[in-house]
């Protein structure tokens, strides 16, 4: 009995962690939808939804009920299996990077020997990351490139010219800007010396600049622009523009399948906001916090976690702000910009970083 509990204990802890992380992220994503409608409303001189709860806070639940009860249409001549697979692929690829997010610093001040069955012996810290993978940055980049399939397959399987065009345009845009995104990350990885997300945060703690946005501001701008294009958000949202392509690749999707695409888009926004925060704004690291609280204690971890969420919310607000402000690119302007300007700038950033790091280390 005790052996069974001992072997099952790490799985139980991991399951609880995964549950908490997914719940937290999905709730944040649901309220990002509401925040977008309210903030866009204020930018456009009106108030957003305010009927469903005080200030509209119950609006996401109303939206969810609406999506569940809508009529579920399936186009007649579509490829059925891929039609059902595409939104699942999009959402799975959007949600998977949650397991590597560094939500906070490890908690080392708690003595775990109070746990029964001797479960607490030998445990020195409680990490606030679900999976500490050595190649965290590559994992996130790889999973977001698998997300392209959801869109391409959705466009194809709807058996609709407009969906196909929207799907192909969107996937072409995503794979073009993935390169610039990856190249802009190389500078940060070179400064930090590791691909592990927690390692990058620790490296930012040690560096004299504290946050890598200061030495890598070019990389930051490139990453931000590429992130807008990756998530198909304004000003790069031609593939889903209503005036051009009806609704792009998700024209033929209704009810819950459309809700999956919708959620996938906002979770992608969340993912790139987290990457931006971790790579350029130091993740959960608040300079000077170690003077107030002891490193590894629970208050330190809590305040760092709240700071992390605050930085992510700042980026999400910036996304919504840009949506309310800028017009959209034409598709050929978009592709020219990605290949002929953004990628060379990212590579130039890498070269300059290499040269500077080499001369500083020699």
């Amino acid at each position, binding site marked *: 009995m005790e052996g069974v509990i001992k*072997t099952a204990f*790490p799985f139980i802890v991991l399951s609880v962690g995964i549950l908490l992380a997914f719940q937290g992220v999905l709730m944040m994503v649901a309220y990002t939808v509401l925040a977008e409608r309210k903030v866009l409303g204020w930018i456009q001189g009106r108030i957003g939804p305010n009927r469903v709860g005080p200030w509209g806070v119950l609006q996401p639940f109303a939206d969810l009920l609406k999506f569940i009860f809508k009529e579920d249409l399936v186009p007649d001549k579509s*490829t059925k*299996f*891929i039609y059902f*697979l595409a939104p699942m692929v999009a959402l799975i690829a959007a949600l998977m990077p949650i397991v590597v997010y560094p939500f906070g610093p490890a908690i080392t001040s708690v003595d775990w020997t109070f746990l029964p069955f001797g479960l607490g012996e030998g445990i020195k810290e409680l990490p606030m990351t679900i999976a500490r*993978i*050595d*190649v965290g940055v*590559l*994992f996130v*980049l*790889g*999973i977001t*490139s*698998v997300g*392209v*399939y959801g869109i*391409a*397959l959705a*466009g*194809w399987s709807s058996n609709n010219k407009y969906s*196909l065009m929207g799907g*192909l345009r969107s*996937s*072409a845009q995503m*794979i073009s800007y*993935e390169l610039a995104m990856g190249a802009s990350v190389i500078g940060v990885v070179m400064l930090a010396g590791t*691909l592990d997300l927690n390692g990058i945060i620790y490296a930012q703690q040690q560096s004299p600049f504290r946050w890598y946005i200061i030495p890598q501001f070019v990389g930051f701008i490139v990453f931000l622009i590429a992130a807008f294009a990756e998530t198909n958000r304004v000003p790069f949202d031609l593939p889903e523009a209503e005036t051009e392509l009806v609704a792009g690749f998700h024209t033929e999707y209704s009810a819950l399948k459309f809700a999956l695409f919708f959620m996938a888009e906002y979770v992608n926004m969340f993912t790139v906001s987290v990457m931006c925060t971790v790579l350029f704004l130091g993740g959960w690291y608040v300079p000077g916090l170690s003077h107030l609280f002891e490193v590894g204690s629970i208050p330190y971890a809590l305040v760092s976690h709240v700071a992390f969420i605050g930085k992510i919310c700042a980026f999400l607000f910036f996304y919504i702000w840009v949506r309310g402000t800028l017009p959209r690119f034409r598709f050929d302007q978009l592709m020219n910009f990605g290949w002929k300007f953004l990628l060379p700038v990212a590579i130039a950033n890498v070269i300059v970083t290499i040269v500077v790091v080499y001369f500083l280390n020699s």
Partner: protein
Amino acid sequence: MLTAESSMVGNALFFVFAGLAIACAISMVYHRNPLYSAVSLVGVFIALSCIYVTLAAPFIAAVQILIYAGAIMVLVVFVIMLLNLDEDKPLTRLRYLYAIGAGLGVILLAQTFFIFYAVMRAPNIPVAEDQTAGRTIDIGRAMYSEYLLPVEIVGVLLMMAVIGGVILSRKLTQPQLELVVDNEMERRGEDH
């Protein structure tokens, strides 16, 4: 966890991922619709990537997803979508192909049983978690010190492939309108 349990879990995981890879491979060969085959191939790559993780090669696993499943197969799917390939029609006339197929299948099965036999007889060397050949820093060091020349040659090869593709697939452009008009005028013997 004790090593006995971890090797049991490791074995179970290997069989799960290997089974997934084999199922996706069979699906890829079976389907007539090329898009289903391409999606099954993506499933194979993802399963292989999981097996690489169990073999303590995280960098190769991540790069497999990033490059193979995320870039190469996306291009293959684009090609299938843009060319609008029809489903393969089943062959009706060449019956001797069935006999050849059965013979090759028997040979393949014999090879598989031989592999099982050889694996059962080989010593079982467990993979250590801190094996130092699969980490990013070791791969990077090897790439730029001992294997620098092969890396550069592969880079040139890839560039040759890209340039070749661009040249082979360009359309011969339409002659400009003035040239067309000039030629027509000459042919008619008039001056403009």
